[in-house]
Each structure stands twice: as structure tokens, then as C-alpha cells.
């Protein structure tokens, strides 16, 4: 059953340098309980699309058009009061850096209790009790005393656990996690991801996980959307994406995952950088960096199509890629091989047949 449906969302920032189209006609859907990943390079518009869902885009940004339906209700048409009832209650958010997301002058416990009192109308002591339970659930030892600690008395991993507890405090339907482990070391990252995975099951919460790391996606998600320059370039189940990527950008992202233990640990990155979002390339926005680009790619904008049939697909498609290769516009084929490694993960690379 569909929980969140984002249709044709466009978000722009009106900066001194020009108008930045951070999210460009973006659509996606998340089902109840689904773990949905969004992956892409820095500046792809991942955070902006996440913040838009809670209507947290601030000046000079503006949500220009589109709709964001939560259980069929358009969040963009709600009053300020109504959207505040959604925030932290039905949809909650975890930020990249827990240390800066926590207010340094209030205790961790107080910050967890706050939304519980606010949204669920719990009394002071009931909220405290629930907050302590939550701290325990997310794996903070000695939660009773830790409740009264200040953020600076927590380690980085514990801070992120506390933030997760805060996000889960009102039993949300959707948890948006924006690079929740980027600020952590690898060991802690793995633990937090496991925890997130487990808690999403336990609380029966859908997760929108944002990352620039395909490894993280593989660990947690069911479905994934690859974003480039504010647009989706590929959408697929995690298995499909890893075993059979359809977009050259996705392949490039995979090639850049460093893998330990593999015979050749090539650290390939896609040449070039993401285009300036003030003045995006014509046609396919990826063409300046694409090894398969032909003349037509500079003119014709590819929509999201079913790679098998080449027909246009909607936001809820199981499989879609936006590349002219699938609409019959390209003279040559995409020629990349994907070999699957031992760990069940794929290794992407281009090969000239």
C-alpha cells in the first residue's frame, strides 16, 4: 500500500548567482514499511527532496510545483499547524550529523521527551518513562542515568542512536534518514545501520534512506532510486540494481565503491563533476560525463522508461532508467559487464567488447 507519493516535485533556490533547480520534476513512491533508498553524488538534490517532504525548505528556496501525498493527503496544501502535526509524528527525520542536530544546552532525555509530550499529549513523567524505554531500545546502556546527560557527554555513535530514538518516539509511518552514518567511523556505521534496519521492522516504519554510498543501500534497502542533478536516472529493486544496472551513471557509482578483499580493488570514479544546477546541460544532463554519449544525447531529454520495452513509466514503476539507449535513439549499445563478487555484491566496470 502506498504511503508516500511524490509527484512532479520541483524545488528551486533563488541565490545571488542565479536560480538553482535543486530538484527537477521528481516523482517517487514509498510503500508502507518499505525501505527506500536514494543514492547520488553530492549536490544531486537528495537532502532537498527529503526536506521538501517535511516542508522544511527555507529561504531562498521554494517548492515550485508538484504534490507530496502522505496517505493521499497533500502535504503541500496543509496549513502550518497541520504540517507541524505531521513532522516528528507521522514523518520524522534523522540528520547526517547528530552532534549538530542535538541542542547542546538541553539534556538528551529532554530532547527525546519533547515531541512525545507535544504530539502524544503525554505528561512530563510519562514522556520521561517512554524516552528511557526508547533509549534502551536503541541500545544505550544505563538509559535511566543517560537520560539526564547532555549531548556532549555522548559519543558520536550514541548521539546518533539518541537521534534515532527521538525520531521513533512518536511511532512514525515514515522515517527519513539523511546520510545517518556519514559522520561515524566504519564500525559504528555498520552497527547503526543494523540497528536502523531492526528498529524499522520493530516499529513497522517505512524508511527513506539517503546516502551517496551504494554499500549502505545494499545493507538496508528494498528499493532504490539513483538521482543525478535533481532528477531520477534509475529506479529499481536493490537486487536488480546491483545485478543488472541499466544506467551508465549507476554503473559508474558502483565502480567507485571500494571493496576490500576483491582481487582488483580499483577505485574508479566517474570522470568529471556534476553540472552546475543553475545552467544544466541540454538533453540528458549526464551526457558530458557519459562514455556512451552520442550527438542525440545533447538534444533529446530522456524520460524514465522501462528498459525492457522503452515505454515511459510512472513514479511507482518497479524498474526504470532514463537513458536514450532504451528508446532506440542511440546508434550503439551500452556495453558494460557486471560481474558478481563473492559477497553477493556486483562489481561494475566498462569493457570494450
Amino acid at each position, binding site marked *: 500500500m502506498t504511503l508516500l507519493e511524490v509527484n512532479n516535485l520541483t524545488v528551486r533556490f533563488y541565490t545571488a548567482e542565479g536560480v538553482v533547480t535543486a530538484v527537477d520534476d521528481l516523482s517517487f513512491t514509498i510503500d508502507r514499511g518499505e525501505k527506500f533508498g536514494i543514492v547520488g553524488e553530492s549536490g544531486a538534490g537528495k537532502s532537498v527532496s527529503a*526536506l521538501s517532504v*517535511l516542508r*522544511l525548505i527555507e529561504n531562498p528556496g521554494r517548492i515550485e510545483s508538484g504534490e507530496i501525498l502522505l496517505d493521499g493527503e497533500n502535504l503541500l496544501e496543509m496549513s502550518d499547524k497541520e504540517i*507541524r*502535526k*505531521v*513532522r*516528528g*509524528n507521522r514523518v*520524522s*527525520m534523522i*540528520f547526517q*550529523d547528530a552532534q*549538530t*542536530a*542535538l*541542542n*547542546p*544546552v*538541553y539534556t538528551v532525555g529532554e530532547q527525546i521527551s*519533547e*515531541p512525545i509530550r*507535544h*504530539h502524544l499529549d503525554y505528561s512530563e513523567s510519562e514522556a520521561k518513562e517512554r524516552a528511557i524505554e526508547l533509549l534502551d531500545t536503541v541500545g544505550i546502556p544505563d538509559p535511566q542515568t543517560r537520560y539526564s546527560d*547532555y549531548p*556532549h*557527554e555522548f559519543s558520536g555513535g550514541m548521539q546518533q542512536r539518541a*537521534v534515532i530514538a*527521538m525520531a521513533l518516539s512518536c511511532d512514525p509511518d515514515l522515517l527519513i534518514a539523511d546520510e545517518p552514518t556519514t559522520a561515524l567511523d566504519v564500525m559504528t556505521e555498520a552497527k547503526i545501520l543494523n540497528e536502523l534496519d531492526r528498529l524499522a521492522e520493530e516499529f513497522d516504519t517505512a524508511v527513506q534512506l539517503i546516502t551517496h554510498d551504494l554499500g549502505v543501500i545494499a545493507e538496508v534497502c528494498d528499493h532504490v532510486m539513483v538521482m543525478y542533478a535533481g532528477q531520477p536516472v534509475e529506479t529499481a529493486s536493490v537486487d536488480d540494481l546491483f545485478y543488472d544496472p541499466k544506467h551508465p551513471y549507476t554503473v559508474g557509482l558502483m565502480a567507485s565503491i571500494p571493496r576490500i578483499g576483491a582481487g582488483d580493488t580499483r577505485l574508479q570514479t566517474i570522470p568529471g563533476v556534476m553540472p552546475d544546477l543553475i545552467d544544466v546541460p541540454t538533453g540528458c544532463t549526464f551526457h558530458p560525463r557519459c562514455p556512451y554519449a552520442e550527438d542525440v544525447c545533447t538534444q533529446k531529454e530522456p524520460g524514465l522508461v522501462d528498459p525492457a520495452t522503452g515505454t515511459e513509466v510512472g513514479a511507482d514503476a518497479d524498474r526504470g532508467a532514463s537513458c536514450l539507449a532504451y528508446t532506440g535513439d542511440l546508434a550503439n549499445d551500452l556495453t558494460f559487464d557486471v560481474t558478481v563478487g563473492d559477497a553477493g555484491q556486483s562489481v561494475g566496470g566498462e569493457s570494450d567488447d
Partner: protein
Amino acid sequence: MSLRRYIIRRILVSIPVLFGVSVITFGLVHLTPGDIVDLMIGQNPDLQPGEAERLRREFGLDQPVYVQYFDWITNALQGDLGPSFSQGPETSTLLVSRLPETIALGLFGWVFAMVIAIPGGIYAAIRRGRLGDDVSRFVALAGISIPNFWLGLMLIAIFAARFGWFPVLDPQTDLLSREMLWWLILPGIAVGTASSASLMRIMRTTMAEELNKEYVTAARAKGLPERTIILKHVLRNSLISVVTVAAFITAGIVSGSVVIEVVFGWPGLGQLLIDVIHMRDVNVIMAITLFVGVAIVIANLFADIVYALLDPRIRDDY
């Protein structure tokens, strides 16, 4: 526990500060050419030269400066601030009679400064980049630029002389009575305005900075109302920086009130200080200076305590 240690430390640190203040003031007063005896001779030409020597010996002014200082500090530490050469009574009696008026004026000015500065700064920060912010910037700039004595004179001219809303002569009522407020308002505003204006700008800047921090977005994402976010989350973080500055303005208020006391004929220490400086009345000058020093030290101590109460990270450092 640790808060108490923190406070004790702060108090201990202020002792050498006060000592230093006393040495410097004493030195400066004695470096100024001429003493009270010269002034007496000037006013009373009949005085014999021998008399002058006798008077200096009587006041202890014939001793080297360090001996005089040593005598003074020994007595002062025992609570004896010495006689006033020019005013008649003992220095301590004099001080006690004038002190309440000055404290009342200073506190009123300080409270006025805070009451205007903090809400004003919050308002400007919330409206940053818009008309309200510009208006507040203009008002603050005016408040900082207008000399306090001129502001005092204008307040008297407009609200006391023209409209007759406020009395201006020496307060004729009990210091702790309600009517006293009427006497305090005009000089209080004159004393507090400049400090209030600079504090308001600092409040605005700090708050605007805090509003850009991620914990604010996180608080919004929790669904808290904007009011709670501003008055609970952002305000407390902003006050941490403002409190330190609020202690600094105490010095401005104290020095400002010397001028304002003269303008308003306020019977406090400020007016007395002007008189005794003319008379080179060392003991009284020393006593008033030290009182000012103590007031500033207390204000800073108070600020440090509030600071530690607001910011848990500070407490842990001690």
C-alpha cells in the same frame, strides 16, 4: 558540586583584580600634581606656610606614596576607609549615605537595558533582512550614537519640563517607595540607553547565527511550534553569548551614571566623585573607585554563574 567550585574559583580570581585596581587608582591620584593642602592654601591665603606642613603631616601626606598606600590598605582591609578631607564625615559614612541612590539608578538602568535589548534583539533576528530588522538597526544606531548627557537633557526638557509627566529635582521620597519609580525613570533611561542599544545588536546577531544552526531545523522537523523553537531552543543558546557582554555593559552603566547623576542632580556617588576629584580627596576617591571595581567584579561573577547555568559544557570544564 562543580558549580560551587567554579564560583569559588571566580571569587578568588577577582581578589588580585581588585588589589590591582586599588594600586593603580592610588598611584594615579598621587601622580596628579597638587594635593588637598595646596587647594586649601589657594582658597585661604591667610594660611601660614608652616600650617601647610602641619596639615600634610596630619593627613599623612608627607610620607612616601608606598607608605601611604600601605597605611591605607591596612586600614581599608579592617573596614576603615579613613576621614574625608573635604566633606567632613568619615568616608564610610559618606559612602553609605550615597550608595543606595547610585545602586538604585544603576540597577534601574541595567534592567531597562535588558528589558529593551533582549526582546528587541529577538524581534530583529526573526525579521532579519526585513523592515523590522532595518528599523531596529536604525534605532540601535541612534541609541549608541546619542551622548547620554544630551539624551538626559532632552528627556528633562520634553517629559519633565514641557509635559510635566516626571519630576526632576532631587528625589524627595523614600528610596524604596513606589513614587521613587517616577524619579528613576528618566535618569534610568538616560543611563541604560547606549548599553541597551549595543546589547540589542549583539542579541540580534547571535540569535540570527543560532537560527541557521542544524538543531533548529531538527527542532522544526520534530513538529515543535516556532514559538517554542525560538523561546526555548534558540534563546538559551543565544543568551550564552549575550550574558558575557551584559557583564561588560555594567562598566558602561557605572561610568554613564556619573554624568547622568550630575545632569539630573541625583544625590549619588557619581556627583560626590566629581566633587572629591576637584578636592583631591584621596580617601573618598579611593573608596568610590573600589566600589565601582567591586560592582564590576560582582557583575562579572554573576554573569559567569548565569553562563555556567545556561551552558552545561562550561560546567564540565571546571
